[in-house]
């Protein structure tokens, strides 16, 4: 039988979730496989989580979700980015056999972004040989801040280019 894993895993809302299921034991007569998603609300009084089925799943099949009836399931980051109010997620797989069904699941908690900070570039204009200083002070994250990455785009709407990165601290760079 499947063994459910109830541990909460931390996931960034900016990345996709790719899961796979493996059937252990006598698995020759699998009738169907299905993945379900639940959103959670923490019940502070009883210290448990209430899970509600995430209903728009079929509507987003093959745009947000791939492989719903297979062993490999992917949820793109759109699921999280479009639902910032949901921080607890449960992904469940259900194997249906002729006489019974078996299920397993993983729980995720969304990693909260850093907050309460700002970024400043000085000077606001210059040439390609001016040294610009990028300062991003006062950001707070309960998990701590490991490093900073800087991206820029020259044409609005186009993809950003990586400009630089550093460990915790102030970064300076020419142009």
């Amino acid at each position, binding site marked *: 039988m499947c063994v459910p894993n109830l541990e909460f895993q931390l996931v*960034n809302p*900016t*990345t*996709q979730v*790719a*899961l*796979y299921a493996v059937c252990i034991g006598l698995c020759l007569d699998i009738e169907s496989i299905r993945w379900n998603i639940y959103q959670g609300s923490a019940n502070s009084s009883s210290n448990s989580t209430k899970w509600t089925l995430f209903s728009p799943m079929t509507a987003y099949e093959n745009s947000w979700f*791939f*492989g719903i009836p*297979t062993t*490999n*399931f*992917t949820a793109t*980051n759109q699921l999280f980015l479009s639902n910032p109010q949901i921080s607890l997620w449960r992904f469940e797989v259900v194997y249906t056999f002729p006489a019974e069904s078996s299920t397993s699941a993983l729980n995720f908690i969304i990693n909260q972004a850093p907050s309460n900070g700002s*970024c*400043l*570039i000085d000077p*606001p*204009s*210059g*040439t*390609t*040989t*001016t040294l*610009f200083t990028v300062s991003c002070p006062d950001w707070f994250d309960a998990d701590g801040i490991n*490093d900073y*990455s800087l991206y820029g785009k*020259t044409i609005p709407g186009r*993809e950003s*280019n*990586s*400009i*630089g*990165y*550093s460990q915790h601290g102030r*970064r300076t*760079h*020419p*142009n």
Partner: protein
Amino acid sequence: MSSIVVTVDSQGIENLIGSFQTSSSALNRNPLVRLLFSGNQNVVGQILASLAQEFNQMNSHNVDTAVASNSQDISPIQIHVHRSFLGGIPAASISISPLGSSSLPSMPLNESALVAYTRALNSQANIRDYLMNFVTDLLITTINSIKLQSSSLVQMTGATNQLTRTAASLAADKCHQLAVALFSMARKVSFEDVQIASRQLTQCATNVVTVGEDVVSDIVKQYSRRLMDHCKLERSSWI
């Protein structure tokens, strides 16, 4: 955050081209070159990207000017750029003929405009050769270094008519190394980062392949293909 206005420091570029044509000691004193010798990933990546963008723009402008000065009586025309590598020294010669005719020039050409174009083309190509060494020397460490270096390489190989065999071969080698490093960490970093980096490496491989089949490393293409397949696999839910 509001936009930052950055204008081109044309004098700085002219100084760089001037130092390059003067002597190696003049070049080593040039402020941009001194920054490039720092080995700092951010500094080198940014300066090379910025120089590449400016050279790419100068190149487009040069081509437009060469066409314009030769197209008063001829319409439509085609431009043939013949690249040759005599003794390893790149030389470009340009001929212009009416559309549809054979490649032999039969029209009067504006000699001085073409000479100016060829001179600019060659001097910029030589500087690119020199600058390419700075990105190839950079250490490959984290996924961030891969993203930054591959982005610089895409821009530096972007003007393919200025890519000499040397520069293209250096870029192909470096893109190969970046692809190998990316492949080794692809399962440990986010799918989105792998996607960004592999798109840039594919672009790098595409840019250098236009220089000549015998220049590009086939392995770069292979790795790019494997990386793109890896991304497609990720999209169809593979962990």
